[in-house]
């Protein structure tokens, strides 16, 4: 399950740290394992995601997922990144039965093995759900 890429992101998280400016900030907690994440988004008028910044604590999966999310979302558009979130969610909730769409997921495909462990799915999804939530608030 620990793809090299996951460990890489865990040890060298991309874009970690809370930055200004931002449109919305959210704080998500996974009560099952105590993982916590604070996440901010900054979106340009045209719908381009300018920055996803975050800080938190938890297992390697939740931390690496935040780092991968940062890479995939920053620079893409709100719509594009939401479709990645959707595909990622589908993969995670597929209990290991879903064939991931690599074209959509990019590096995030490394998390496919997590889907077989319900207890870990929430770790992988923590940052992604926080991101979706933050986007909604930034636009609401």
């Amino acid at each position: 399950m620990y793809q090299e890429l996951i460990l890489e992101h865990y040890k060298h998280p991309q874009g970690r740290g809370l930055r200004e400016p931002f449109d919305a900030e959210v704080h998500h907690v996974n009560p099952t394992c105590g993982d916590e994440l604070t996440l901010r988004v900054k979106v340009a008028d045209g719908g381009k995601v300018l920055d996803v910044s975050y800080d938190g604590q938890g297992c390697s999966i939740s931390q690496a997922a935040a780092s991968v999310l940062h890479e995939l979302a920053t620079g893409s558009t709100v719509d594009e990144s939401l479709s990645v979130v959707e595909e990622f969610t589908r993969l995670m909730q597929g209990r290991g039965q879903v064939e991931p769409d690599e074209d959509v997921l990019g590096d995030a495909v490394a998390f496919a093995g997590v889907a077989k462990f319900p207890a870990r799915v929430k770790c992988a999804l923590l940052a992604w759900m926080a991101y979706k939530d933050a986007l909604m608030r930034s636009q609401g």
Partner: protein
Amino acid sequence: MSAVSGFDVERIRKDFPVLTRELPGGRPLVYLDSGNSSQKPAQVVETMRDHLTWHYGNVGRALHVLGSESTVAYEEARDKIAAFVGAPSRDEIVFTKNASEALNLVAYAFGNPVGEDERFRMGPGDEIVISEMEHHSNIVPWQLLAQRTGATLRWFPVTDEGRLDVEGLEELVNERTKIVSIAHQSNVLGTVNSVSPILARAREVGALMMLDASQSVPHQAVDVAELGVDFVAFTGHKMVGPSGIGVLWGRRELLDAMPPFLGGGEMIEAVWMDHSTYAPVPHKFEAGTPPIVEAIGLGAAVDYLNAVGMDQIKAHEKELVAYALEALPEIPGLRIIGPRTPIARGGTISFTLEGIHPHDVGQILDDVYGIAVRVGHHCARPLHLRFGIPATTRASFYLYNTTAEIDALVRGLHHVQKVFG
């Protein structure tokens, strides 16, 4: 051989080793008690054995290979069962230990101070509607609910032909009614109840509706979305599955609104000493370690039934019951309790034999011919009181039964009359 195309009862019988069993004294087994509990095909038994031997771990919580294998198999079973009964969402399938627990789970949702939803409030003045043909498992939970809350329990009567008497529907199901719960198919009469008129009236008055489908899901294709009711209960051991597993299907929105029933591990989101938040359905209703291998066994049972085909099974049973409805009345003094035509009824026939107590009928059939029928009130005592009889003898058919077995039953009954004549 059955006339139903593609359906080969002799081939099916080979999947059930017990049907080849010789009982003490050299009697072959004639199993006509599937309405009580069905036999299990080797496919189900081997699936369970394989899982217990090589893949067993606790579900949900474990992060290792065995835990993952069990979790995947357990949740796949849920998918299979959801598909089998046409559940709009897999999360609407709650595993219980039997149909009785499923019925109690819903009953305990009412008048429960832990819940807040208006539809589940219950107190004096509120009414619960069941019927006179119910199994005790669809009577006693509602009696207890009425006792806990002060609500009133009411019921549909049954006609002399063994049909639900819906004449008083408008008055019986009224603005005070919170829930109507009736059998989809009677375990005594064989009657298949027509759901839609009752459901329409329940909707009119804003009542919820539950079906006890313990006797229908094993024997015909049931589609919960098509039925349109709110809750459906059924049980694994009557549908070639193992003991220890039952199912509650409920509309997601209602399951969400209901308070939890059993508290414990796996049904929570987070726990503090002084309060808790709960997991989303179905887990909210699955406290503690669930019947893991039993659910997996039920998944295998559903695979088996699908492979044979539910429509084929239904057609085969219809043939059997038509045959039996012709053959049985030729026995002098035999009286069928329930519909005497093979229309809107399943493969269950209950009857009395004049002057001979059903206990004696059943025991002689077993002792002398190895014929297994059920005798007594079949957990439906009020229905028997309604017909003024203490007990009946019941023959119930399933996919593995043959007309030859019905012939054996007829011969056996003649012999019973000789013994006690």
